[in-house]
């Protein structure tokens, strides 16, 4: 071990302190929302200074959120978009990536060119809207699934990864008379399970968090995903139903606490899954960065 100078040690201490500070700054807003969501509304309003624990203990806000019909339907819709959307995304991305990863396909590079061009040019918001409208998908669930079926970046990650699977494996299977589909289903896919997991997570979290598609294509509130419902509650201040609740329960500050509880209810699935999925995401970014 080389002797470390005083300056080195000072730097290490400062570095650790700085990073601890960064963690506090990152986490505190979430903790604040958790504490506030469990606080008795009237006491929360009276409180001043840093909030470091719930003021009193209060769960009625959560009960109100879970009874809110828009939250419930938003949740159901989002689960539909996440499950069905992600399945279709991964299936079609993998299928096309498989075709683009084949060796002896003359038109492969033409197809690849067609794909790469879309990374630099796109029609933009309005032509996309006109297309979806002319396909009759406006105000249907398909509008949130079909236009984004294949994400080009994910496609390229998958293709690169498929290409790195040793060709001898397929060759052997083909000698035994396996068809292309069989090679895909029984060699490529089983060997790519970790990659498929990354793709499921990329697409899944994307669907969970997405709201602009719904904003552009949906008018029917019955189809709104959770994030669009959240926008109404948190941003547009349409706390109409929560303020109604405030007056019936006689607590004028209940609406605020209900907002905090809404944030927690809507974010909990991500927060609970996060520790388990984080490493897959990191892996996915690495694959994209190194090979893409």
């Amino acid at each position, binding site marked *: 071990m080389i002797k470390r100078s005083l300056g080195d040690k000072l730097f290490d201490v400062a570095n650790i302190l700085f990073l601890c500070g960064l963690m506090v700054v990152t986490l505190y807003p979430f903790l604040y929302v958790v504490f506030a969501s469990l606080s008795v509304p009237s006491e929360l309003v009276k409180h001043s*200074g840093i909030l470091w624990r719930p003021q009193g203990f209060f769960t009625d806000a959560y009960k109100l959120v879970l009874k809110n019909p828009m939250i419930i339907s938003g949740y159901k819709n989002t689960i539909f978009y996440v499950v069905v959307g992600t399945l279709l995304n991964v299936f079609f991305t993998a299928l096309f990536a498989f075709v683009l990863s084949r*060796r*002896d396909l003359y038109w492969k590079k033409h197809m690849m060119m067609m794909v790469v061009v*879309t990374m630099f040019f796109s*029609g933009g918001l309005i032509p996309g809207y006109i297309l979806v409208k002319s396909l009759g998908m406006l105000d249907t669930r398909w509008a949130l699934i079909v236009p984004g079926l294949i994400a080009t970046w994910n496609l390229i990650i998958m293709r690169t990864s498929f290409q790195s699977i040793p060709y001898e494996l397929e060759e052997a299977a083909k000698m035994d008379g396996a*068809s292309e589909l069989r090679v895909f289903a029984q060699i490529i896919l089983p060997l790519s399970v970790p990659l498929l997991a990354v793709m499921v997570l990329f697409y899944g979290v994307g669907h969970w968090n997405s709201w602009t598609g719904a904003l552009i294509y949906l008018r029917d509130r019955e189809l709104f995903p959770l994030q669009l419902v959240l926008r109404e509650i*948190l941003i547009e201040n349409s706390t109409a139903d929560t303020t109604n609740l405030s007056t019936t329960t006689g607590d004028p500050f209940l609406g605020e606490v209900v907002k905090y509880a809404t944030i927690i209810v809507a974010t909990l699935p*991500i927060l609970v899954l*996060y520790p388990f999925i984080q490493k897959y995401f990191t892996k996915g970014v690495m694959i994209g960065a190194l090979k893409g």
Partner: protein
Amino acid sequence: MTEMNLSVKARRIGRTISLPAYLAMLRKDFKKNKYLYFLGLFGVAYYLIFSYTPMYGVIIAFKDYSPVKGIMGSSWVGLHHFTEFFQSFYFWRLLRNTLLINIYELLFAFPAPIILALLLNELKHANFKRVVQTVTYLPHFVSIVVICGMIVDFSRKSGLFNMILGWFGVEAQNLLLDPSLFRTIFIGSGIWQGVGWGSIIYLAALSGIDTQLYDAATVDGANRWKQVLHVTLPGIMPTIIILLILRIGGMMDVGFEKVILLYNSQTYETADVISSFVYRRGLLEANYSYSTAVNLFNSIVNFMLLILANRISRKVNDTSLW
């Protein structure tokens, strides 16, 4: 040699190949790979319909599009929408806001993940490093609606931000109603949400640096700061340059998602950017052709910036996208 790779064969033959021979080769390729081409049809159809049709749809920027007449039936107006936009009061405001957000992001948000990665790289405790990474990646996964919902709440007169500002004697106000604060809030929250996630790519590059270089530097008497300067930074420079090129290519790009969640008519003066204007004019006011023209102008400038940045970087230090 039945498994002869057709594309290799074609390349070897080169341009001298005659048309009938080329067609014969194509026919053979199609016959041999008919299932593959069939599977590929789905992907090709998807890209043709959902990427290329909208690209064709961009021609409404030069037309007076009406939904009844359709894209083909609408009459041509040439550059009318463009000149209207360039002459309008909005043009300079949108250009300024879009560019300023990007310039400030380049100055503050672009270096932040690099600095974080360098600091993480200096840590000696692997566990502590992992904890910091896990914590700082977290906000990336939280939806932008929730993040902006929190920002809106914290910016209220009695919100968290005002309480903290109060310690420094700043008078409480609704921060999101003050146009002069919009960029600070927009970019600051962006750094807060993205700094950890953005550092992953640099950490990957850092892990690729040969440790022998550090040993050699130590032998040469380089202290830690010198090592960062002469080993670490050069090691991740190609990554930095590539991301910088992409960033500069997006200098005229600000997504409308976060803007329309945080702005309001009182802050349009600093907050309204090209994409949010396109959204408002196009979808809310159904000015399809006009907003497509604005969007097209934006894309063209972006593409030219990307080419320019790429060319400069190739000249200056041999790193380029293509």
